[in-house]
């Protein structure tokens, strides 16, 4: 950590900005801890919906896929990018809808119970 810090400072000095991968690593570490803390207490009822919802969020790679269909990089890259968009969208749309379907059942049950 310390070394990265000095490295970052040195590179920042040279180029005027922090290199992205160092900013990214900071973000990565903090986001990881956020994820760990958020999940600590979950009732078993929600394990499946939570897994499904988190899975849909991991479809965020869709944002990356959208960067990959720029038109001047050759057809093969574009086709790969297109496939990436399709697959990620399946994950995102399907994931959120299925999660909602599961959670909706808890909802109706509550109304019925009270």
């Amino acid at each position, binding site marked *: 950590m310390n070394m990265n810090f000095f490295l970052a400072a040195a590179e920042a000095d040279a180029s005027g900005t922090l290199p992205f*991968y160092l*900013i990214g690593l900071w*973000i*990565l570490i903090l*986001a990881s*801890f*956020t*994820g*760990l803390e*958020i*999940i600590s*207490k979950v009732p*078993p*009822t*929600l*394990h*499946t*919906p939570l*897994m499904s*919802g*988190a*899975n*849909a969020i*991991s*479809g*965020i*790679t869709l*944002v990356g896929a*959208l960067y*990959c*269909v*720029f*038109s*001047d990089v050759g057809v*093969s*890259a*574009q086709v*790969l990018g297109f*496939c*990436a*968009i*399709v*697959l990620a*969208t*399946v*994950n995102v*749309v*399907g994931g*959120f*809808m299925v*999660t*909602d*379907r*599961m959670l*909706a*059942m*808890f909802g109706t*049950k509550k109304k*019925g*119970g009270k």
Partner: protein
Amino acid sequence: MFTPTLAALDLSLIEQLVYMASAFYFVAGLKKLTKVKTARAGNRMASIAMLTAVLMTVYLVAVKGEVHASGMDAIRASLPWMIGGLVVGGGIGVFLAKKVEMTEMPELVAFFNGMGGASSLFVALATVVAFGSGAVPIGPDETLSVFKGADISISIGLSILIGSVTLTGSLIAYAKLSGKMWKNRFGPVGSQGLNILLAVLAIGCVVYGGFIATGGMSMTVFLALTAIALFLGVGLVVPIGGADMPVVISLLNSYSGIAAAMTGFILHNNLLIVAGMLVGAAGLILTQIMCKAMNRSLAAVLFAKFGEEDGGKDDSDYVGVTSTSAEELAPLLEAAEKVIIVPGYGLAVAQAQHKCRELGDLLGKEGIDVSYGIHPVAGRMPGHMNVLLAEADVDYDKLYDLDQINGEFKNADVVIVIGANDVCNPEAYDNPQSPIAGMPVLDVWDAQTVIVIKRSLSAGYAGIKNPLFERDNCLMFFGDAKKALEDMVTEFKDL
């Protein structure tokens, strides 16, 4: 000049704020997903965050032309690809989400997860092809892999590696869960030796492709890495027994998040890193929760061959099994004061959750105290049974988890085990040699009478014998769970 790597850094303040809001909503949504009351709102929040992120990105790439400056015509030409991809993918997603039965949920999550992994893989490959085709000048004579670009090429390597393992691993998990594949080996695939070899080769490719390979070479290395990692994913999941699939899916879910985060390093996009690592960490915690529930370490799950050797046990191994019928059971239930229902995967397969509720309600009307004992890994995923019983409108307050219910069995007159096996196997306590030794199980045998509804005496997911069935206080009611419960309801009404 084409500079995809600076995409997210060149955003205006407002554009940054939109991405930031999206990241915030992901975190808040995930947090809300952990509470029953707010879970649905949380899921909506996360999906709005995703929609925001996608619309912003489409605007940035296809309208504003953020990622490159080769003329607005070229930029606009990418729009149909985006819209097309979103429409096709969205259509498939909607179709699958609407069509699939609640009981098949675990498989579906595994499948979706594989798609996410595949997407990260393709993003990384598209970047490699784009760089490799020479259409993307990083600088004169500069190649991707000069040490200066190592952060990107390492990220590409990791994204390919993790994405590929997620893809094939999830597909194998999908096949195992949907009962399409039971094999624990295909020739040498799945053996530990080969896995270690593949893993070493894969890491070698990441390092070589990251620091050493240049230009066209790096493309070759990354393609080799893809092939190796795809095999590795198969090899890692194939030997794992079906009973451990929930843990595997949760772990692969975590992987797909990490793969997405790695694409964030390639494209220099903070949002990808935040959302990806959130899922990466969340999946890891869920995995741990599940391992704890089974009293197994993650290493034991991943490397032990669970339930492979004992799979051959069949009916003939059982002696002194008492079978019963609905007519016999009705008076038994009527005389009971406290009944505990223990559902398992058989309930899901037979779609018997509604019949189960009906029987529960019927008993409840007679003044019988009915509760449900849910083992954390009953079914194919943690919480699988909760979801099914919720679908059938069973009251939450009647569902108890392992720790809450285990002391209650000794007070119960009747326990009805519906299509569950391994989660109430006394071997876990009695036989230290058993593959499930030490796993906490439901102590159903403490009850006066245990009724087990099961299609046959065949082994459960762990592939081992269950001596519970031979006990004196255990009655076997053979048949499909739905049919059996239906018969019990009819007989009970006729009393």
